């Protein structure tokens, strides 16, 4: 994109989400004031700015599309923004709530929960933003970190596309000198197929990565699933690893589906004891 000569105008929009990714801004501390010196924030409800219709240079979108109304709204956002950035798993891959897509359970779930389901207008399938409008940049993570968001803003201020780091968590895990939990504890870590961005938080905390940053480049998900089977995981448990926060990301969905709701006794393909 061309260099942004004047102070760029930005908006932060929320769709179906937990608000956690917006906190990447609100948790900035004094850097929030610095950011404000670099950009004009026109719309950001939680921070108190309300002008959803304003034309902006960069729109950050949190949350997935889960109601008919949200489909309309995202088109509006697109129409008013030059550069649209999704922040977080919800906006980028549907997020946790997209688990309802798996078995087409939406209607049952709604009717079970609401006394008056007729007032509930939700879509059967949760969609990531890119399923509906063109997205210029995706920031993965549940939640995205302040560092990711600031790096994206900074790059756009320089008039260049932000770097899309698709390395896997394992690489960062070793850079951080964390001890591999899969090798020392035999726990099923998603690090080998998950992209970095978090700084390998989970392994540094002695636990398995659960894939909250979505698939890495060339994610060898089938190979990893076979490894999980070798560690003793039953098919459904393997499916649960892949079908969690980024269940709709194709690399995770594809492998997850192979094991999802398969009879517990069915043996997964591949080696059992390596």
């Amino acid at each position, binding site marked *: 994109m061309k260099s942004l000569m004047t102070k760029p105008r930005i908006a932060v929009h929320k769709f179906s989400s937990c608000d956690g990714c917006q906190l990447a801004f609100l948790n900035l501390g004094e850097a929030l004031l610095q*950011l404000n010196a670099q950009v004009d924030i026109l719309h950001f409800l939680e921070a108190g700015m309300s002008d959803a219709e304003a034309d902006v240079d960069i729109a950050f979108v949190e949350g997935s599309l889960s109601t008919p109304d949200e489909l309309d709204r995202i088109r509006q956002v697109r129409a008013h923004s030059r550069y649209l950035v999704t922040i977080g798993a919800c906006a980028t891959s549907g997020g946790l709530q997209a688990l309802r897509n798996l078995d087409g359970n939406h209607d049952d779930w709604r009717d079970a929960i609401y006394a008056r389901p007729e007032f509930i207008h939700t879509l059967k399938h949760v969609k990531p933003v890119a399923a509906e409008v063109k997205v210029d940049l995706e920031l993965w993570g549940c939640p995205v970190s302040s560092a990711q968001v600031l790096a994206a*803003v900074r790059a756009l201020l320089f008039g260049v596309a932000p770097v899309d780091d*698709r390395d*896997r968590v*394992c*690489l960062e895990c070793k850079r951080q000198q964390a001890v591999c939990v899969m090798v020392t504890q035999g726990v099923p870590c998603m690090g080998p197929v998950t992209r970095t961005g978090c700084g390998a938080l989970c392994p540094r905390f002695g636990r398995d990565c659960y894939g909250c940053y979505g698939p890495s480049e060339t994610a060898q998900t089938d*190979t990893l699933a076979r*490894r999980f089977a070798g560690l003793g995981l039953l098919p459904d448990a393997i499916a649960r690893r892949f079908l969690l926060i980024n269940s709709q990301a194709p690399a995770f969905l594809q492998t997850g589906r192979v094991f999802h709701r398969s009879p517990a006794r069915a043996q997964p393909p591949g080696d059992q004891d390596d």
Partner: protein
Amino acid sequence: MPTADYLPRHSLSHLFDLLQQHGYRLVGPQVIDGAILYRPLTAVDQLPSGTEQVQQPGQYRLIQTDSSRRFSWANGPQALKPLTFTPRETLWRSQLHEDGSLSFHETPEPATPTAVIGVRGCDLAALALQDQHFADDPYYRQQRDALLLIAVDCSHPADTCFCASTGDGPDAKAGHDLALTELDDGFLIRAGSERGKNLMTALPLTAASHASHQQAETQYRRASQQQRQLPTFDPAQLIHLGGHPAWDAVADACLSCGNCTSVCPSCFCFSESEVPELDGTASSHQRQWDSCFSEGHSYIHGHRFRPDTKGRYRQWLTHKFGSWVEQYGRSGCTGCGRCISWCPVGIDPLQVLAQLGDEPPTSN
């Protein structure tokens, strides 16, 4: 006059004190998060005690025994590499001034003199390889020149070790300042440099008994009997075996996760990146460990030379065991076995090498 070459176990702390008196920061093995890690320490009792280990392809477990030995394990996930080739560091900073001019600044952080205790023979050999590779790299040199190395001969190699067959272990052969052989009740000690000799003179040493020397000898012989061995192959030919079915088999098993390259004490790849400040007036140019298993490694705009795991695994293996010989006069592997243990799926490159040597390649 018999040489004074024996340090009783309880006098190990004298060595620690001596090093600290000489202004060294101490770094040594410690049990952390279920593995042996080299971390700063100040006292002997922070060292492992009676810790042994089981290493298998894709598996690493510590075992606690009653022994009072401090070095009865083979190795941990990292050798000396992080101490000299920092996983992530800033190379230089640039500043954009009001008038539009740019200036560049080094970010020198003077290295603290550091004594590393418990270094293995295989790791010294790997360090020598990195010394060659990074000979004219100022960032590496600065850290490297600050090291004092105190090796300990390996008495308990793991099942994944094959240093005897590469000729780099189990004892410390070269590159150390001091080397210890741990025995039941103390250490045989020898110097590998002038600095080491000088330190030795300040230690409360006695002459080791004949029995001690015999114990060391037996121990050495036992440690040298390793199950795993580097198979024979022609390094110059590896790169030409592209059509061999072994690559497909290993590509199917491999995660492309890069752990083998990260734990390898000789792997040196890094990528560079730019980290600008939010206000856009200053920026840091950094480098961080990279791996030939990553997509970016073989990327040029619009093309990747190694788009898949097969190509990446081949790059790794043919470089480490093949082209390395041409580059640095020997193979890049010093037999530490880390890539076998720390591979999450337990791939053993020696097996792949053996397959490549065994079966005739199909044509490429």
